Structures are given as structure tokens and as C-alpha cells.
């Protein structure tokens, strides 16, 4: 790729700037916290204009349907009574929060910020790999990589190459927070410095101007959420972009053993006095088991054919699927629905015969716990190893932000595996990242 050769000279410079600005992620090794630089490869993933337009339509359609699904299951549950979806996957999934039944979030939005993971097969077809609706992270990395790229590369470089400007993410995020804000400040709630994505929390706060807060800074009084100022003043909050998970959000409503959280925040959320971004309970739609039903959801709520495909997926829960899985075990990848971050992923052909036997016994005992997917032959993407280019597996996390309508960010986080034999691209497992260039119309 000619562009790769052109960029090579700037690789060191951009990486130096990434280090300078502390673009890191946190990781625990043997119980100890470390900050690590997130390895950046300067060769971008390039998606041409028409191809992205198609992705954009598909992603909007998908996120819209997921939001309708959440609205439905926390109210009338029509999709269940109409027999489109097996209720077991909702009520025994980890994301379902019974406490949210009958509660409608401000403006009816459940998934304000969705991170949808895709891969591209060798034949060019894009497949949805998973939906991340709870607290998807990663947008900050391509944001700052582009920002620093603009400092290092020749002037007008991105304009000359017809790349869509991706520096509007903060603006999209602000718009999303403001749209549902019930009156007051917008804040970003972080569990603190020892969270893997702390850089992102603080960078978003810097760019959006929303306060970065921890649970200690917040208090619920008189049915409202307040930020406590250092002089003792209190300021009302109307929208909280929380980067902590549901179970730690409110110790008097969820896990009472939790040492963090804001007591009563859920009580006032129920009353509509604050917007929580993303809405509690929205994990009911991003469960790996629910993923199987998303194409059916799109048809059900939108009366449209899905624009983007799921990877071919089988649920051991269904007898026919189980038969297929057992017959084609070696060609499939099996995923534990409760795991994330690249953990709990098993490739059928990597198991020894005794391991395989054990696994199949487990599969039969707990069919609800797993999904099976065809192994997609990813299109490799080039990375620099030294000065030579080598092919590696990569995925794409696209970000969809919902305000009055869903908007797809014209960029995305491309993660790659540094290990030539691995399909696992997660940063916690040693992967790196790339910028994602979306081409403007002109060639």
C-alpha cells in the first residue's frame, strides 16, 4: 500500500506523541495495576465512501432495533408474547435488570452510545461480531491518534487524502448528553484512575467540558442528583455518562456490598429526574445469546431486512442447532455468553480429544451458556513490524451515538492482534490499534 510507505516515516513521531500525552490503558497483572501504552500502528484501516455508507445504514438500523427491543422488554414484552424471541435469553441473561421493568428513561433512549464490533471477511463482506451497549470504550484512541497525526504529518495531509474528519466525536457525545439532559450539568462518572479506560474518561471530559466526577463527588438530595463543589456548594446534574456498571451504580438498589456507587441515584432515575447514559439494564440487549435474535428483531420492529449480517451463529439451546454444532464442532468457535474481552472463546479445532469430550459434556449440561459461530476468514490487515509490513487479524468497533436520531461516527477503533496466529484483538490481551479512515465522496 503506497500510503503505508508514505506514513512509515511518521510512525515514530506519532508514537512519541502518544506517549507524551499519556495515551494508556490500565491492566492488572498478578494483582498489580500497571499503565501501558496502547501500541499504535500507523497504517490506517481505510473504508471507502460507498462501503461506509452501507455500514452506516446497517448500524443505524441495528441500533434503532436494539433500542426498540429494550423499550419493549421493559414494558409490554410484545416480542416475547409474539414468540419472536425465547424469553429465557432475556430473563436468565446477566444484563436483565428486573428493577427497570416499567421504568422509561428520558426520551426513551436506552443505548445512547453503542460500540458495534464488526469484521470483514476475505470476500469483502462485513459481519457483526458483537454488540456492546453497556459501557463500550475505545473511541478516544482513534480520536487522539488523529489529533496527534495532524500535528506530525505534513499540513493538509488528511484533506489531500480525502479522509473524513473524525474530530467531532466530542461534539457528538455532548449532543447525546444534552439531548437527554433533564436540566443541570452533564458529567462523566469514572470509577477512578485504576480503571482500564481511565484515559478515555478523562480525555472525554477534557474535550466535552463535562465534569469528570467520582461517586464521592455526588449526592442525591430532594429527589435530585447534585455535584458537591469544594466550597460546599451543590450543583444539579441533569445527565450522567457513567463508566461504571449497573451493579455498582447504587448500593441501596443493587449490590449493597458495593463500596462505590451513588445511593438513591436509581430511585430518582425512575422518577425521570436524571438521565443515566447508557441506561441501566440495557445489557439485556447485548448478551451474546440475544445477538442471535437481532436479525429477527430488525424484521419485527422495523419490517425491514437486516442490512448487515450476523456471523452465522448457532444456539445449542435449540435442538437442531445443537446437532449442527456437534457435527461441525471443529469448524466452529464457541463463546461463553457471560464472558467478555476475548475471554471464554474456544476454537473447536484447538481442543484435544479429551478436552473436546469434556467441553461437549458441559455444553449439553448448560446449553444456554454458549453460542457457536462459524469461524470467519477475516481479511487480514497490514501492520508494520519494524519496517516491513505483515498481515494480522483485525476487527472494527464502530460507534453509534443516539440523540434525536442515531449517528454513526465517521471513524472507529480498529484493533489488531500482534500475534500472527491469533484472532483475539483485545487490548487486555496484547492487541494494538489503528486509526480508521472513512473516505469522503471525492476520489
Amino acid at each position, binding site marked *: 500500500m503506497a500510503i503505508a510507505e508514505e506514513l512509515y516515516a511518521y510512525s515514530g513521531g506519532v508514537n512519541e506523541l502518544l506517549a507524551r500525552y499519556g495515551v494508556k490503558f490500565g491492566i492488572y497483572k498478578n494483582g498489580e495495576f500497571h499503565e501501558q501504552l496502547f501500541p499504535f500502528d500507523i497504517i490506517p484501516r481505510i473504508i471507502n465512501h460507498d462501503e461506509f455508507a452501507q455500514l452506516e445504514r446497517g448500524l443505524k438500523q441495528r441500533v434503532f432495533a436494539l433500542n426498540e427491543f429494550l423499550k419493549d422488554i421493559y414494558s409490554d414484552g410484545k416480542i*416475547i408474547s409474539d414468540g419472536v424471541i425465547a*424469553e*429465557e435469553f432475556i*430473563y436468565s441473561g446477566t444484563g436483565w435488570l428486573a428493577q427497570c*421493568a416499567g421504568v422509561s428513561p428520558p426520551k426513551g433512549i436506552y443505548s445512547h452510545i453503542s460500540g458495534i464490533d464488526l469484521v470483514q471477511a476475505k470476500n469483502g463482506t462485513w459481519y457483526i461480531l458483537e454488540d456492546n451497549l453497556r459501557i463500550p470504550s475505545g473511541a478516544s484512541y482513534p480520536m487522539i491518534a488523529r489529533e496527534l497525526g495532524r500535528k506530525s504529518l505534513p499540513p493538509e495531509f488528511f484533506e489531500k487524502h480525502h479522509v473524513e474528519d473524525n474530530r467531532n466525536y466530542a461534539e457528538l457525545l455532548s449532543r447525546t448528553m444534552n439531548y437527554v439532559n433533564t436540566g443541570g450539568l452533564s458529567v462523566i462518572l469514572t470509577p477512578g484512575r485504576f480503571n482500564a479506560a481511565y484515559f478515555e474518561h478523562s480525555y472525554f471530559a477534557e474535550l466535552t467540558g463535562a465534569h469528570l466526577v467520582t461517586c464521592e463527588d455526588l449526592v*442525591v438530595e430532594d429527589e435530585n442528583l447534585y455535584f458537591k463543589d469544594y466550597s460546599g456548594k451543590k450543583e444539579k446534574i441533569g445527565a450522567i455518562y457513567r463508566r461504571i456498571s449497573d451493579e455498582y451504580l447504587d*448500593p*441501596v438498589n443493587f449490590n*449493597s456490598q458495593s463500596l462505590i456507587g451513588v445511593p*438513591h441515584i436509581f430511585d430518582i432515575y425512575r422518577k425521570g429526574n436524571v438521565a443515566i447514559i447508557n441506561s441501566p439494564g440495557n445489557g439485556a440487549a447485548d448478551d451474546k445469546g440475544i445477538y442471535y435474535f437481532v436479525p429477527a428483531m430488525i424484521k419485527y420492529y422495523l419490517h425491514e431486512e437486516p442490512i448487515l449480517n450476523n456471523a452465522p451463529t448457532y444456539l445449542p439451546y435449540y435442538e437442531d442447532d445443537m446437532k449442527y454444532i456437534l457435527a461441525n464442532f471443529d469448524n466452529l468457535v464457541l463463546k461463553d455468553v457471560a464472558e467478555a474481552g476475548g475471554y471464554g472463546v474456544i476454537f473447536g479445532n484447538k481442543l484435544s480429544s479429551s478436552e473436546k469430550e469434556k467441553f461437549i459434556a458441559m455444553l449439553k449440561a448448560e446449553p444456554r451458556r454458549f453460542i457457536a459461530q462459524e469461524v470467519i476468514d477475516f481479511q487480514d490487515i497490514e501492520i508494520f513490524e519494524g519496517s516491513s509490513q505483515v498481515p494480522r487479524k483485525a476487527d472494527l468497533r464502530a460507534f453509534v451515538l443516539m440523540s434525536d436520531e442515531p449517528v454513526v461516527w465517521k471513524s472507529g477503533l480498529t484493533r489488531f492482534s500482534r500475534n500472527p496466529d491469533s484472532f483475539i484483538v483485545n487490548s487486555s490481551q496484547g492487541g494494538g490499534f489503528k486509526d480508521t479512515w472513512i473516505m469522503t465522496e471525492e476520489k
Partner: protein
Amino acid sequence: MMHRLRYIYQMRLNFEEPVREHHFKLRCFPSSDERQKIFNEHIKIYPVHFSNAEKDSFGNLCIYGTANQMHDHFAVNVDGEAEINSEGKVPAALNKIGMFKYETNLTRAGNSIREFHRSFEPMNYMTGYERAIYMMNELYEEFLYTPGITGILTSAEEAFTLRRGVCQDYAHILLALCRLERIPCRYTAGMIPGEGATHAWTEIFDAGAWRAIDPTHNRECDDTYIKISSGRDAQDCAINQGVFYGGGRQTQEVKVIVHEILPQS
């Protein structure tokens, strides 16, 4: 003829060291429905800085609030009168019962409950309710009422492995058994005549309504069972969920008194 009952629920938390910024959510207030009518209810909570009442997603009346100032104890007193019609049907819409068919952490059937369940006769032409009664009988024969062995966090499987426990354990195990067969069922906290603590039983979905049965006493609930709350398990019915600063060791005293009011001549 309908009985009228008088009830008193008292709960007191004593803190070894004073606490502040005490946030609480209480779920200990019987409310009226198709089965029970509540009269003359009085609620006292001490101390309180602010509080508010609402129904949660299960329809249980909750009072939540904050006590900011230092206090060394926290007390709740509820008293009132109830009239119960055990034939009264609490309706349940079909689209609201799905979540009561699936196990929760406290009602998960492990090996010992599954093995017990396998020993049952197959379910021939029985309704879910009849099946639940059958399983309640089996459980009653197998389990011994024994206080002091299990706690509020004990799961159905743990209690059943011990074969001993209290009303909460009976209820959880019966729920685990019913859920193995996908019979919609829920946990119920309440009060029965006498002096002591709160009681727990189960409700089984039957022909569009919830019917109450008491596995601890192996019987259908009659018109002396005052319901406080219901949910998927004891956690959904937590009487008090609170957090605060300070406090050291805390002790909880609960007193429940229920007696019949004789019809006035």
C-alpha cells in the same frame, strides 16, 4: 366470614459507633390488593432527613431516604389492620410473569436439588399449581425446620444440601424446584399470627392469578397471611437495604406481632 388482623412490625438497628449519611430503602409495608385490604396504617421512621415513597418494579411499596445527622440507632415502626380474603385473586398479566420462571442466584438448582427433583414422579396431567403442591409435599418430608443454621444470603442449593433451614430456605428451594419446570412462581415476604419475625412463602401462577402456598407449613395460605412484598427471591424483597459511614458493629432487632381483632358485638 372475614377475619380482621392487627399487625405491628418493628425493626431497630443499633450501631456500636454513631453513623452519618445513612441512606436506606425499606420494604416493610403491607399494601392493599385483591387479596388483602389494609386499614389505619401508621409508619414511623427515625431518624429521617428526607424520605419518599414509591412502588418498585414488583409493585412493592418502598420508602427510601437519608438520615444525615449522627445517630446510634435507626428504627422503623409500622402498625395497622388487615382484612384478607384468601380467595381473592391477585391478577398477573401473562407478559409480566416471564421473569418468575427462571432461576436467580439464590434459587439456582445445583446437583442436590436436581437429584431430588429427578426422584419425583413425572408430571402427568397436572396444572403448574397442582405440581407445585406436589413438590411442596415432597420438600416438607425431606427438609427439617431448624433455625440458626442458614442466613439471609444462603442459597436454595446450600440450604437443601444441609436439609435444614427456615422459611426463607423452604421458599427458595420450592422456587428452585418450580423453576426447573418453568412454573412461574415468586417469593413472598409477610407476617402471620403470633409474635416473632417476618415469614416467607411462595406464590404460584395459576389461571391468570397468583396463589399463595406456604412450604414451611405445607399448606395453602389462608386468610391470616399478611403479605408485605414479593419478587423473584428474598433479595428482591429485602426489608432494609442501607449504606452509611461509620458504625462499627451493628445489631438488628425485629419484632412482629399479629393477632386477630375479635368482631365487636
